[in-house]
């Protein structure tokens, strides 16, 4: 009887510990008021992106020519643009572009960067040198300018904006993962993993990747905010999402030409970018504090 119940008991304790650790993690993230606010903002943004067609009072392309250049009012919450499109509806739809570019470019950056970092850190040697020197070369250039250079070659479009931001951010993930791969390369449990007969790929994906998951998550969340900023900048310069697709950056670039007669066209899209980036940064900072006890007092 005791023989059977003992391992059971241990298992119970373990799962209880896991559960309480999970709860503790969520609690400590949310206890941080800014992080909670960030989660709220990001949640609302995701809902807005999904529900844009139902939330928007008008379709984003419809032109109410007789109501062109209207200042904010009850009928047009954020005013209308020069050809009479509803600014508020366009901003709601713009959420989709920002979130799409933010998340897709980080998925691209994370998958490629993590793979490079894992391979470089795990195998070391000449492969490591070649891969990391390439990453260094990418970092040997200011991020925004690199993105602009890539766009200038590929041509401006939504997809190329995602690609450019993804490439620019890739080295950060590669460096992060390589560092943790190197730090655990010589640990004993890696040797035991090898002794059990796990292949290199299994070791990389199960052992090393799992061990460096928390900094990756933090980097991802902060990266989304950064990517949204860069995309907005590209679109502002006319090098990102092309009209008539409503994107906050290109709306700002369009509105700047009419600042003296329709300032609401620059004010609101910028505010939307600001709140969105703030939201993702709050979540990222909160995650970092929750996952990295060292950061807690800072």
């Amino acid at each position, binding site marked *: 009887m005791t023989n059977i119940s003992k391992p059971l008991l241990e298992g119970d304790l373990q799962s209880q510990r896991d559960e309480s650790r999970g709860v503790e993690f969520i609690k400590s993230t949310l206890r941080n008021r800014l992080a909670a606010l960030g989660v709220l903002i990001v949640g609302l943004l995701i809902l807005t992106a999904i529900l844009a067609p139902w939330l928007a009072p008008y379709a984003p392309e419809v032109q109410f020519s007789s109501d062109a250049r209207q200042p904010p009012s009850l009928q047009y919450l954020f005013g209308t643009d020069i050809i009479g499109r509803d600014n508020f509806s366009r901003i709601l739809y713009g959420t989709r572009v920002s979130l799409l570019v933010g998340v897709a470019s980080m998925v691209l950056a994370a998958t490629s960067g993590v793979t490079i970092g894992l391979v470089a850190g795990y195998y070391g040697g000449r492969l490591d040198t070649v891969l990391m020197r390439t990453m260094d070369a990418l970092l040997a*250039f*200011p991020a925004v*300018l690199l993105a602009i250079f890539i766009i*200038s070659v590929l041509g401006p479009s939504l997809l190329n904006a995602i690609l450019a931001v993804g490439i620019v951010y890739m080295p950060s993930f590669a460096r992060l993962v390589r560092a943790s791969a190197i730090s655990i390369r010589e640990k004993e449990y890696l040797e035991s993993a090898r002794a059990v007969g796990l292949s290199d790929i299994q070791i990389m994906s199960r052992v090393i990747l799992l061990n460096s998951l928390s900094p990756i998550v933090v980097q991802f969340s902060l990266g989304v905010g950064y990517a949204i*900023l860069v995309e907005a*900048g590209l679109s502002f310069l006319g090098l990102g999402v092309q009209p008539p697709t409503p994107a906050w950056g290109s709306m700002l670039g369009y509105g700047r030409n009419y600042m003296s007669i329709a300032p609401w066209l620059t*004010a609101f899209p*910028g505010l939307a970018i600001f709140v969105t980036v703030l939201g993702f940064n709050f979540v990222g900072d909160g995650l970092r504090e929750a996952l990295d006890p060292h950061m807690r007092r800072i």
Partner: protein
Amino acid sequence: MQQYILRRLIQMAFVLFLFSTVVFTVLRLVPGDPVAAQLGLEAGQEAYDQLRHEMGLDKPIYVQYMIWLGEISRGDFGTSWRSHQTAISLIQKRFPATIWLTLSAMTIGLLLSVPLGIVSGVRPRSALAHFATFFSLVGIALPSFWLGLMLLLTLSVSLRWLPPSGYISPLVDPVMGLKFLAMPSVTLGIGLAAPLTRFIRSGMLDVMNADYIRTARAKGLIDRLVIFRHALKNAMLSVVTIFGVLLGSLLGGSIITESVFNWPGIGTLLLQAIQQRDYGIVQGVVLFISLIFMTINLLVDLTYAYIDPRIRYQ
């Protein structure tokens, strides 16, 4: 030390070589015919061949590459495909505006971030510390082009205090020069101060808890001495890196802020070249910027050794 510098210079040359190869290859892969783009549609075959020959595009690709490498190693960064001006001469013309903007943005950035960062690191519960946290959170998320546009809207369009755009060297006309500089450098300065404040603050927080600070205090040193002589110097170590990266990107021309204020610097030079598909200039500017960026990175690493004598480069 000398050996270290030499090794870094060789490394830099290698990265630059790599970069130039990539730039060369990539720009030849760009869709569109640069010769046709210059001539327009009506030009005859003869004129086309003539120009193609002048631009060196009729030679095999590896010959073009060797010529390009030869030019680069002689410091010739390419020639405009439109105006036939050399990239270097255009860069020389544009660089002073970017340097002015960088210097004044740096000054504003440091004047804001250093006191805020120190105070909030030393007195983390004070009102100023809360303001510093708020400031850096907001500043990091604030799109610089939006901040710039909002400044334009209030200070220039509504209040008419400052000219909306333009540039004159402050050496030629100090008053007008500074008026033109004010908005772009405040825009960039705030963008700079926000992350710096954060770094200085966390650096100070780390250091203030260190044993040697407690010792210094126990010795009876006054606070100011402890903070400035012992804490700040150590806290600055991590700050130097981020400062270097920020300085490098500013000197490379902050393309977006320069564009908002029509600032005739390196950033707008690159943007115009891209818009006009003038790849002779694009490749020159790209190489120039990466050279600056790498030089500053090297200077940052050398500064480490100066601030922290424990660091010795092998």
